[in-house]
């Protein structure tokens, strides 16, 4: 049963514990948070805070120990591996820090892979949309190259085109600028910003970089698997202060 909500992703009372060498580690501790549709949300926290686990659980890559996760109002907890896989093809886009592209496929083949996996024929609109993205991101000439022939920034842009191409419910970006120089970082962040502002795409970005988070509409802070702050748009300076305060309190 879908539930009525503005949240594209909703975590309800979610706990996730890992059993490492006999000592259970609580990565998420009864966390409840909703991530709104059409917004650019940054999830922040010190390393080991549980922000990556939050993303993995929200994206159906990892099963929560307890609690419920909803994607676009539909519960995804308890879905089978195949159902989750099918969900990822159609409803979720991913951008990782590195190693985003399948090395044996060209850039355009990488972009089209989720469509092929979902058995979806490209209609006129899809084609126009992908063409637009490719041109807008300045990838036109490189589109038939293998990832090895692309620079880090170009690879990251191809990954963003792929994530946006199928107009998924939500795009998850895990430290998308972690491996880029500051100029390329700014380009990539501006791109995600544009996807939200112009195309109404929901984007969730996990990051520890205050500059990256300053591009977001909302900054969610996680510490020890719990919500430690929820702010609107902030400057990089303000976010740095928030993080330093968190560290001081710990």
């Amino acid at each position, binding site marked *: 049963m879908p539930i009525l909500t503005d949240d594209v992703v909703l975590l309800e009372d979610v706990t996730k514990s890992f059993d490492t060498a006999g000592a259970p580690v609580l990565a998420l501790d009864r966390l409840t948070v909703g991530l709104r549709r059409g917004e650019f949300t940054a999830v922040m926290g010190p390393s080991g805070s549980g922000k990556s686990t939050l993303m993995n659980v929200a994206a159906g890559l*990892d099963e929560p120990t307890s609690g419920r996760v909803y994607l676009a109002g539909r519960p995804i907890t308890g879905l089978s*591996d195949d159902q989750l896989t099918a969900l990822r093809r159609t409803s979720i886009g991913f951008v990782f820090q590195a*190693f985003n*592209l399948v*090395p044996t496929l060209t850039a355009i083949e990488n972009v089209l892979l989720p469509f*092929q*996996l979902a058995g979806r024929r490209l209609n006129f609109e899809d084609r126009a949309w992908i063409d637009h993205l490719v041109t807008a991101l300045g990838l036109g000439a490189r589109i038939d190259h293998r990832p090895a022939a692309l620079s880090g920034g170009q690879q990251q842009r191809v990954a963003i085109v792929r994530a946006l191409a199928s107009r998924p419910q939500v795009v998850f970006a895990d430290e998308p600028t972690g491996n880029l120089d500051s100029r390329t970082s700014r380009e990539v962040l501006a791109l995600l910003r544009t996807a939200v502002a112009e195309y109404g795409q929901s984007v969730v970005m996990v990051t520890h970089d205050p500059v990256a988070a300053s591009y977001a509409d909302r900054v969610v802070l996680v510490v020890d698997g719990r919500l430690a702050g929820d702010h609107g748009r902030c400057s990089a300076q303000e976010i740095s202060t928030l993080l330093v305060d968190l560290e001081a309190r710990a």
Partner: protein
Amino acid sequence: MRAPSQIPPRLVLGSWRELGTVGVVAALASAYAAVLIMVAAVAGRLSDADDGALGVMLGVVATVFILIALYVSGVVMTNAVATVLAGRVRALALLRLLGADARRLRTQIVRQAGMVALVGAVSGTVLGVVAVLVGRVIMVAHGTIPGGSYPLVSSWLLPSIGAVVAVTAVAAADGSRSVLTVSPADALRGPQPSRDAVRRLTRRRVGVAGFLVVTGILVLGMAVEAGSDGSAAGFLLAFVGGAVCTTGILVGAQLFLPACVAAVGRLLGHGPATVIARRNAVKDPKRTTRSTIGLAVGVGLVVTFASGLDALRRQVLEQDDLTARQRALSIQIFNLTEVVLVAIVVVSAVIAAVGFASTLSLTVLQRTREIGLLRVLGLTRRQIRGMITREAVAMSAAAILLGAVVGIGYGSAAAASLVGAVGSGFALGVPRFVLVLVAVAGVVLVIVSAHAPARRAVAVTPVEALRFE
């Protein structure tokens, strides 16, 4: 204080387990050699009555087959070492960055592989000797052979162990050539061979390989001609022609085998998982060639012998002046010879199969992150398993086809060079039973070799796989 001359082995080649293939192949080859040597020794004692001629002949035959097995083992082990190293470019580059020189790294690799091979060879030899001992005791008990004192060991066992270790050392040195090209800068990015050098090398390779293959086929043709004239030189010519042509095929393999693999892959469909499987099968043409050529040689050997015997049988049975009894007797002799010969050469094919399976397993392991990414993007577990299986199918089918075609050619030519004068000159030897056997073995090989890596690949969650280094 003196600086240690050795780099800790773990840093160079990872865990000893990564050299498992080298150990298994060394053990298999040594066990095989030990069995042949001891059987020849036992048979030699039996034939002492007829002044030992049988023993000498068996010794020569055993040596030839051991050399063939050693050759296949060498190809397989070169590939095994190269595959392990390909997955460790970054670790090696880091060692270079910290001051290890390339030559010392290579010496270390050769030493480590040699040690693993020594352990494998000694265990294999012991196994082989025990197997012959048990077999002999049983045969004496059954009265198949007379009792008495038989040799327990042979002085040839030591050179056999030495040969296996030496082949391993050469294979490790050859397989680790890539280490020389790893620059410390590769610690930060993957190495890219310069295009020009590759192209220049390719052109020369085409020339050499083409020349050898054409010459080999011409000599084989001359052998058939000589055979139909009843000349005794025919068989020798056939041997030389086959050897030259095979060398040409081996030299040129990396020019056409990857294309064969890709062609077979194209027959498997056009889904995204199939496309990725096909591209992976030929991503590194050298690696593809090495892991398939061993299999092609193994299959080629089996088919050559079977096809030769089949062609001989056809030509002999074509003669009209045979009595029914002679006919039945020749069929019986041919069948027995076929079983024995195929049983002896099949070991080389088994060694090649072990190499094939281990290469597949390692290359899948090296692609853990890629598989994690594919799972995240929407490949189901079934599709991942199917992808790995298709990769194995494309590679093994291409190798088996090549081996079978070449084997039928050699076998038929050799038979014609022997008895062309008595029969119709040339008969194509198509050993149906052995070909079916090879095809079935190929299917089993694909299932067995793809099963474990496929299961391991889908056992890790995508999140774990993406974090894999």
